[in-house]
Structure formats: C-alpha cells, structure tokens
C-alpha cells in the first residue's frame, strides 16, 4: 500500500481569480471578490452580497471551445476549466497511462439551469437537453469526458465538506491499490435556490462577511471550482515529478447534533481535527497554521473556535479564514482552501482574515489580519464543516 499521497497538480477558479496564479495575486494583494449580484435575476439582487466568478457561461464555453448544444451547466464549465488547469499543472499527457479516476463534489448540481427551465421542462421542448443536467453526476461525467477519464468516477455531496471528502476518498483509493492517481475537487455555482435557501436560515450577511469577528452577521455565498491531482508515491518517483505538497492526513467525523447547526462545543469538529492529526501521525505542536472553515456565521465560528481550543488548548496555531476573500464556495470550499494552503506552504505565506476587527467575546482567538511572509510552514490543517454535521479536516505538508 502506498504510504504517501502527493499533490502534483492544482487548478482553481473563484471570485478572486480565474486560475491559481490570479487567485494567488488577489490573496497577496488582499483583494476580496465579494460584491453585488450581477449574474442572477433575483429579488435579493441589491440586498445580498455574493462572490461571483467573473466569467459568464458564454465566455467559459468560448475559452473551453465547447458548444452550447452540449448542455453545459455552469458547474460543468467551472469544473472543466479548473480540472483542465490541474491536469496541465500535473504535466499529464496521457490520462489513461495509469489507473486514473475522478471524484467531484457539488451541492447545487444543475440547479442553475433547472430553476431557469423548470416550467419549460414539462411544457415545452425548449430545454430538453438540460433535463438530465439536473443530476449531480452530470458535471462529473462532463469533466471526465472532456479529460478522457474512464477508469473510475464518482460524485460526493455532503454539503460544505464535499470536496475535502473528495480529497479523502481519492487518497484512500490510492492507498487501497484501486487507483494510481485521482483528480479530486468540487464545483458550485450561484442559484436562486441556494441563495433563497440560505436566506431562509437567516445566515447571510448583508455586507461582506467578518469571520471570527464578534460582530459577524453571517456568510456570503461564493461560487467556484477547484481540483487537485493526487498521485501515489510510486508514481511520483517513477515519473520524477516535483510535487506541490503531501496530503499527509485526513478525517471525517459527524457532529450528530442538528441538521444544520454545529454543536456549541464543536464536538464533531474537534473529533475530526484529532482524528486527522492521528491519521497523519502529527502532534498539535506540528501544525503551523489552520485554514479555518470560518464562514462568518454566529454558529460556525463559535463552534469551530471552541473545537480549536479543545484540541490545541492555549497553543492555537496561527489561523485565518480565506472565505473573507472568496465567500463560501460550498462544495468547492474544501478544495479551494486546500489549494490556498498549498500556496501558503510553497510561498511561506499566511493570508489574512479580511475585515476582522473585534475578537469574539467568548474566547481569545485572534486570526491573522495581515499578510505574513517569509514564514516557515511545514504542516497546515484545513477545516470544512457542513450541514448534516458533516466535518472533514485535511492536513497538508511540505514535500
């Protein structure tokens, strides 16, 4: 069984950049992607800020040289662009040279199109091609078909921990000898369904979010896609590649407290953190930085903060929430933030929590608010906690 899982390719598309380089520049320059809704026709247009990918579907179709007739939903387009970047970055020329799989994640699936064409689906023939794109598997198949992957595919949907779970499954498939390499990640796009759904839960901030701030009012929804190429140790050695990082640990645990809220003491989160540490054979003092889930909701940040204190005691590592830049990209969050963590590891940087002003009164946890450079980081913990109590923690290490 392969011992180490390497990350050899990364690709990302968010509100702060159309590829990894652009994301990196925005992170360094503290440029957030949160702003007014421009791409959705909703009554909340002027009220609720979101983080939109700054490319329209038509622009994506053109760039990827795809035909509209192919019925590409927005998440398929975002996913193909990001996955393509990751494959190129991993310098893969023949996708089927080794046993290669794809695991993608989504929460909204094809809803952007389904809600637009809902009445057409039954009453006209106008949008028939989008009927089957409603299903979550559709975008994974479209990415697989674009890249030529046939060996293995699956799609995960576990709310906000989805793409972190995709990473975990990918690693386990390699360790269990089923695959040699896997493209893992997720994609989500803005829809009225998701926007209104979160709005009914009263957890959307009417201004750009303030993670871990005492005056935080909620999250901002974001859209995006991010993929990583995971390869076995044997394959990396054989190909003589220089990997980006090591996926050195992971764990999934369930809060089992409530359908949407996290437990006040962050039990599920602390379990996932401890199990990820155990899985990576690392101790708490080995963690140099945490990319927290940090959505900016009253509930998450309190619960997550308590979980961090449970695990790290008085020695909480430096931490920040990059959702202050990208909004909460839902299923893509885990993989987006894994890529940001890799950028931190490789460039010896920690990105700040934008707009943080006042520490939470419940405890003394202060996230990083400035860009930190020239800092030696060996191990990063990245948290993703979702609805249904689903909590995943991954640990990335310098390779």
């Amino acid at each position, binding site marked *: 069984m392969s011992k180490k899982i390497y990350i050899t390719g990364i690709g990302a598309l968010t509100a702060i950049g159309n590829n990894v380089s652009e994301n990196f520049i925005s992170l360094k320059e503290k440029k957030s992607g949160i702003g007014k809704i421009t791409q959705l026709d*909703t*009554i*909340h247009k002027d009220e609720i800020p979101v983080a939109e990918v700054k490319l329209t579907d038509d622009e994506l179709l053109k760039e990827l040289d795809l035909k509209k007739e192919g019925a590409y939903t927005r998440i398929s387009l975002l996913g193909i662009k990001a996955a393509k970047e990751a494959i190129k970055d991993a310098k893969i020329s023949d996708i089927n040279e080794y046993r290669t799989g794809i695991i993608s994640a989504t*929460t909204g*699936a094809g809803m952007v199109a*389904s*809600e637009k064409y*809902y*009445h057409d*689906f*039954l009453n006209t023939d106008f949008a*028939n091609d989008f*009927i*089957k794109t409603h*299903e*979550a*598997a559709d975008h*994974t*198949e479209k990415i*697989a078909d674009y890249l030529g992957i*046939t060996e*293995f*595919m*699956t*799609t*995960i*949907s*576990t*709310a906000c921990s989805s793409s972190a*779970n995709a990473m975990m*499954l990918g690693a*386990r*498939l390699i360790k*269990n000898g*089923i695959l040699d390499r896997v493209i893992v990640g997720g994609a989500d796009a803005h829809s*009225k*369904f998701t926007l*209104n*759904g979160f*709005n*009914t*839960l009263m957890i959307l901030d009417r201004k750009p979010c303030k993670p871990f701030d005492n005056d935080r009012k909620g999250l901002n929804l974001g859209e995006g896609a991010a993929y990583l190429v995971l390869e076995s140790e044997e394959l990396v050695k054989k190909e003589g590649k220089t990997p980006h990082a090591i996926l050195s640990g992971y764990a*999934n*645990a*369930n*809060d*089992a*407290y*409530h*359908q*949407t809220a996290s437990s006040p003491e962050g*039990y*599920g989160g602390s*379990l996932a953190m401890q199990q990820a540490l155990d899985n990576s054979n690392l101790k708490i003092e080995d963690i140099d930085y945490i990319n927290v889930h940090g959505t900016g909701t009253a509930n998450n940040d309190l619960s997550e903060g308590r979980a961090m204190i449970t695990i790290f005691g008085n020695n909480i590592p430096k931490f920040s929430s990059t959702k202050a830049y990208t909004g909460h990209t839902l299923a893509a969050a885990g993989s987006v933030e894994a890529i940001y963590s890799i950028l931190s590891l490789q460039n010896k940087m920690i990105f700040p929590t934008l707009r943080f002003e006042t520490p939470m009164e419940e405890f003394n946890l202060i996230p990083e608010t400035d860009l930190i450079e020239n800092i030696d980081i060996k191990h990063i913990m990245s948290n993703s906690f*979702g*609805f*249904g*109590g*689903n909590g995943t923690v991954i640990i990335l290490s310098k390779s």
Partner: protein
Amino acid sequence: MKAYINGTASLSPQNSLDYNEFLKGIVEYEDDFLKSIKPNFKDYIKPIEARRMSKTVKNGIICSEIAMLEAEINMPDAIIVGTGLGILSDTEKFLEKMLNDNEQYLTPTSFIQSTHNTVAAQIALRIKCHNYNFTYVNRGFSFETALQDGMMHLNEGKKNVLIGGADEMSEHYFHIVRKNGRWKKIAIKNTELLNYKTEGAICGEGVNFFVLSSEKKKNTYAELKSLKTFYKPKNDKEINKKLLSFLENNNINITDIDLVITGQSGDKKGDAIYDNILNNNFIEKPVAYFKHLTGDYQTSSSFAFWLGANILKSQKVPDFIMQNNKKVKKVKNILIYNHYFNINNSFMLLSVI
C-alpha cells in the same frame, strides 16, 4: 479482508420488509411508476421526530435500524449512502414555492431536507453516530461507490459499516424525464415487462440498507466477494471482455456461477445488451431479473444486492424472478450485472458463506 453481509432491509414496491412475505408472490402494478409500499411509520418514529423527514429519510431510518439489529450492532463505524437523485420531493417543494411566490414567504425546512446527504445525516443524528458519514450521488454508481467505500473501510481495519441505496421518484420529475425518453410512454403491467420491446424503462424507487462486516456471525447472509464498475463501454465486446476479466480476477469460472441476476428494465436498447452478454456466456445458466419488482432507479442495484443476499441465506428462489426455465440447484455464487442506461455498469459477486 472479507466483507460479510450481516444485516439487510428493504422498503420497495414489493413486500420486501420481510423476505418470507416477499416470497409469497409478486405485487402487481400497472402504473406510471412503481411506488414503495408505505410501512407504518408510527411503529418506528415519533411524529415530532418525523416532522423533518421525507418519506425516503423515514424509510432509510427504518431500514438502517432493521439491518443494524440483524447485524447485532448499535453503532456502525461508518454510514455511507448512495442516492442518484437525492430527496426530490423536498427539492421540488422549495423550488416550486420559490418560483410561484417570487422568492417570498419561504421557509427553511424543505431546503434543508433537500440536501443530498440528508438520509445519512438523519441516521447519524438519530443514533448519535459521530463516525464517518458520506453520501455518493453519481447516478448508477452511487450505491456501488458506497459499497466500495465500505469494503475499503473493512480493509482499513473497521468492523461494521452501514451501507444504503436510496432513491425516490416524484410525479413531476417522472413526467419530465418520461418526456425525455427515459421511461415508458404508457403505464405497463410490471409482470409483463420483458414482453415490451419498446423505448423506455419501467420507473420505480426504493430504499435498501445493509451492514457489511469483517466478521462472520450466525445471522450472516453471504459474502460480498467483489465489485467492479465501468463507465460508458464502447460496445458489447468491451462489456464481455470486462466480464471475463472480472471473473478471472476473482478466480471463478462461468461454471461456478449458479445464478445470474440482471437489470433488464424494459428499455429495448438497454435490454438488448443484457441479452447479448447472457447469450454469449450464460446460455445454460438460470437467469433472474428484478426491475419488474421495483422499477428502475439509479440505486436499484441495491435491491438486486438485497435479493442476492437473501437468496444465498435462505436458498429460496421465487419463480417470479426467473427469466428462463433453467433449474436452480444449490446457490453458492451469484453474479449481479446491472447498468443504468449503459452509462454506469457494474458487476457484483456474492457468495454463500
């Protein structure tokens, strides 16, 4: 590491909650789509608990409890569910309200309940299970990935994993997809499924749960020997090659297979594929089918899995599942071959313990 099936439970359009009841005879339908028989929910779930559970969540809770009871476990090491479409009813409820009332007066319940991982999450919530919890949503691979993940867990040292396949159909979604050619254009008798060589499958739904364990128990049904999935095969030749390769990798010959269960759905094009593979390899073998019992749905292979496990344990094979007249002797090895509109294909090998 071996994978034993230590608990099973099924809620489907047949009397599958009890295998002996199921054996008594096929429940006949002539409907647009086959709907699961409703159990008495109050026997299992209090109204205050059931308020936030759709039909499929309730069925999932009931089936998981029964399977765990049979397997003599209170807490599984993992809960893994496969669902192709998630909870359609709540998705539609929220979507329709949103569209009809122009995004006003919306409430969170149906939104929360529409999330794909709600079945797995509600099971965990109910039994306070803090362990691994995953949901796969990849059409006709959803249940298979759940099984594969479960097998990996056993390989990694875990003892018991709870695996489920769950899908529901709604009136609205049914009509949309029928318009797109997936389902039969008219209601047909499920008992005459194989007589209709026309376009479209018979549609259905169901929830099936299992406990896979690393240890044999007195209740053990069977062993899940192996599983293989493959995507959009180019032609029947490729499927045939994959089949022979699957058997070879498992050190098993065609002569060792005592029963084949295939997923004929009534769709002319899709069923021709099964017929070719059967004619090439299993012409002398007893062959059964199951979609006339449950209809086709993206996790319907979980019903075939339930059927196979129960046959191996009881050695009772009902006439009404047989496609041919070949006599069924002692059943030691069952091969299940299923595809979802030839996009997602799978082979499963189950053996007696």
